[in-house]
């Protein structure tokens, strides 16, 4: 059992029995700030050395991605021939994954804005995804990256449709969440677009219709364009191969969906990632912010190719510490971040994709049923918090999970 330092600044006292103590509870306020200073120094060092090498990297990825995409689509014009179908679908799947993850996600984060290249800039880039970049940037860059793992604030915790923390009150609809998750995985890009429209907030009136309407229209326009490309124009161009090209494009989109869903769910949901109370945000220092990002994120281990295919979200911890540093630098700073974690006695959650993804699935399955507090180390609901939850039901808008 960890002994809590009286000067600690982190984590509130568990409501009952004290099962849950943050992995950072042993740190004093001074230690937290020292850790923050060390991470600041890493950030400054990377910023000071951004240059030619990084620019070459992103240009190379863009060229490779476009080569794969055009090559794959060219092969698929003859998709009636099985070898062309297989090679074309594989190339297009990889191209779409690279486009969304190493390019789209990271460029839209502003990781490459420092180059001042109008073609590779967060304000001008759009991605091969049905969610228009502008809406995704707001929900992701601002809401998720600012309120990471704050229950009730970070809507990415379960994406409003799943119970991913035991603290969230169980409801019968959660019994369906394993199926919801399979479905979401298959159509992930549409799920993200729908999620960004925030139907829950529209229903509750928190998001005015005047704001929602143009967003919905823009999303439908984007869906129309994406669908016209993949499911009408390229099949038509393929002539006798029309149907097999359509199936190939559907396959590539689905492969991209399943893959990005898996990678993204492994970022914050595996066992050991912590979630936090909203009160924590009050007066949170930079050091405490860093710690929340580190404890709330999990890495994937693997080869260089694996890191590239995850858009370096395999370095989720480094990405959450420094969301706007170029993605090619995460692997370089990871050993130093890990060393800092070890030195300060903090966990550095990392594992291979199959292991991490299995843990995510186990959690989704377990939390489909009531309880789960013991396994996931959360305080059991007390009569007091039950009262709180009764209030929650009356005012779902304010506290929408």
């Amino acid at each position, binding site marked *: 059992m960890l002994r809590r330092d009286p000067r600690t600044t982190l984590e509130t006292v568990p409501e009952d029995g004290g099962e849950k103590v943050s992995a950072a509870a042993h740190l004093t306020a001074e230690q937290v700030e020292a850790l923050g200073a060390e991470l600041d120094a890493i950030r400054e060092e990377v910023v000071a050395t*951004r240059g*030619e090498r990084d620019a070459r990297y992103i240009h190379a990825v863009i060229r490779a991605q*476009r080569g794969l995409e055009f090559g794959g689509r060219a092969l698929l014009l003859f998709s009636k021939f099985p070898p062309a179908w297989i090679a074309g679908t594989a190339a297009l799947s990889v191209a779409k994954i690279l486009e969304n993850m190493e390019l789209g996600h990271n460029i839209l984060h*502003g990781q490459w804005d420092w180059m*001042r290249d109008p073609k590779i800039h967060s304000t001008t880039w759009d991605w091969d995804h049905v969610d228009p970049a502008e809406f995704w940037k707001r929900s992701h860059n601002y809401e998720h990256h600012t309120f990471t793992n704050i229950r009730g604030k970070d809507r990415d915790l379960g994406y409003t449709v799943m119970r991913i923390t035991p603290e969230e009150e169980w409801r019968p609809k959660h019994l369906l969440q394993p199926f919801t998750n399979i479905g979401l995985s298959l159509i992930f890009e549409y799920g993200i677009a729908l999620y960004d429209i925030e139907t829950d907030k529209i229903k509750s009136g928190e998001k005015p219709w005047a704001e929602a309407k143009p967003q919905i229209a823009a999303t439908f326009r984007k869906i129309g364009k994406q669908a016209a*490309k993949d499911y009408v*124009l390229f099949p038509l161009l393929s002539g006798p191969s029309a149907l097999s090209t359509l199936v190939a494009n559907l396959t590539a989109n689905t492969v991209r969906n399943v893959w990005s869903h898996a990678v993204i769910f492994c970022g914050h949901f595996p066992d050991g990632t912590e979630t936090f109370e909203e009160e924590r945000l009050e007066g949170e220092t930079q050091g405490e912010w860093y710690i929340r990002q580190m404890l709330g994120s999990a890495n994937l281990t693997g080869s260089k190719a694996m890191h590239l295919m995850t858009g370096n979200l395999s370095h989720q911890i480094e990405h959450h510490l420094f969301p706007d540093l170029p993605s090619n630098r995460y692997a370089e700073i990871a050993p130093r971040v890990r060393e800092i974690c070890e030195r300060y006695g903090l966990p550095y959650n990392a594992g291979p994709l199959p292991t991490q993804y299995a843990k995510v699935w186990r959690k989704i399955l377990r939390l489909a049923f009531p309880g789960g507090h013991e396994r996931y180390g959360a305080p059991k609901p007390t009569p007091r918090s039950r009262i709180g939850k009764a209030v929650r039901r009356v005012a779902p808008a304010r506290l929408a999970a």
Partner: protein
Amino acid sequence: MARRVRAAAGLLITPLVPDDVLGTLNPMWSRSAPRARVVRVVRETPDTTTLVLRPGTPFARHVPGQYLGIGLQVAGVWHWRTYSVTSRPGDRLLSVAVTAVPGGILSGRLAHDTPVGTVVGLGPAAGEFTLPEPTPEKLLFVTAGSGITPVMGMLRSLDPAALSGAVLVHCDRTPDDVVFGPELRALAARTGLRLVERHTAGAGRLTPDTLADAVPDWAVRETWACGPAGLLDTLAEHWERVGDPELLHVERFAPKRVGSATGTGGRITFAASGLVADAESDTPVLLAGEAAGALLPNGCRMGICHTCVGKLQAGAVRDLQSGDLIDAADQPGRPVRTCVSAPTGDITLDL
């Protein structure tokens, strides 16, 4: 029909646009981000180099005397500066003259360290320092140092008849320092252009009196002047006092600043991108925005070309050249030149 085909072709590559594809295949093919390749480098003087460029895509005709933007990626970051065009409109190749400025990020590199084959970014030609149509009969050019470069573009483009009777007074330290010296002397010998070289190392600086000695009829000549701020200020004052200020056209290479004009500094919000930047009291909005990663329109970067103008939606800025305070409270949406304006308190721009 053609439009429909184009629209369908565009959909094939959405969310890219055709220009992205061309630019990926070969940066020289991009029209939205035009590029040029350096095909020849002419060392004019130890400081000044002519870069001869082959534009990748057809380049809009310039007017002699104008400048254009040259962009170069230095350590991964695009930097842009403007340089006078010295080639003639319609020439197959473009020439610009670059003088290395001590401490400059770009000029030194362009002047000394840009091998043939380098690809540079190309901005549109701009500038008001041009000759009117028809060409005035009595012309006077007063230049010093690299100030000759825009005038060189004019001289090369004028036909011999227009040059006949024209006067060029050029100041430089020594005969060897004169950019385009041999060409200017040959041009004077071949046409009726009168070239007055003043070598300041021995003869001292040009003053209104020495100018009047060399060109007695200066007051009736329409005059184009380009050079250091001190010279231009002297000339402007002289024309204001005893000449016709309407007849004097000047081009400044360095922003004219009111010594003490500064803002108080503040936070700049760029409404279009949502980016936020903090600026010191004497930091132009443009520089602060670029440092924060904003993509902002820019051209001369010294208050001349108005490429960088943005509308001030809220707050106030100090014009670093005039010292004027421009306040959105007086007139929302007032255009401000971001390259020569510093925030006075927090501001919002439509850029």
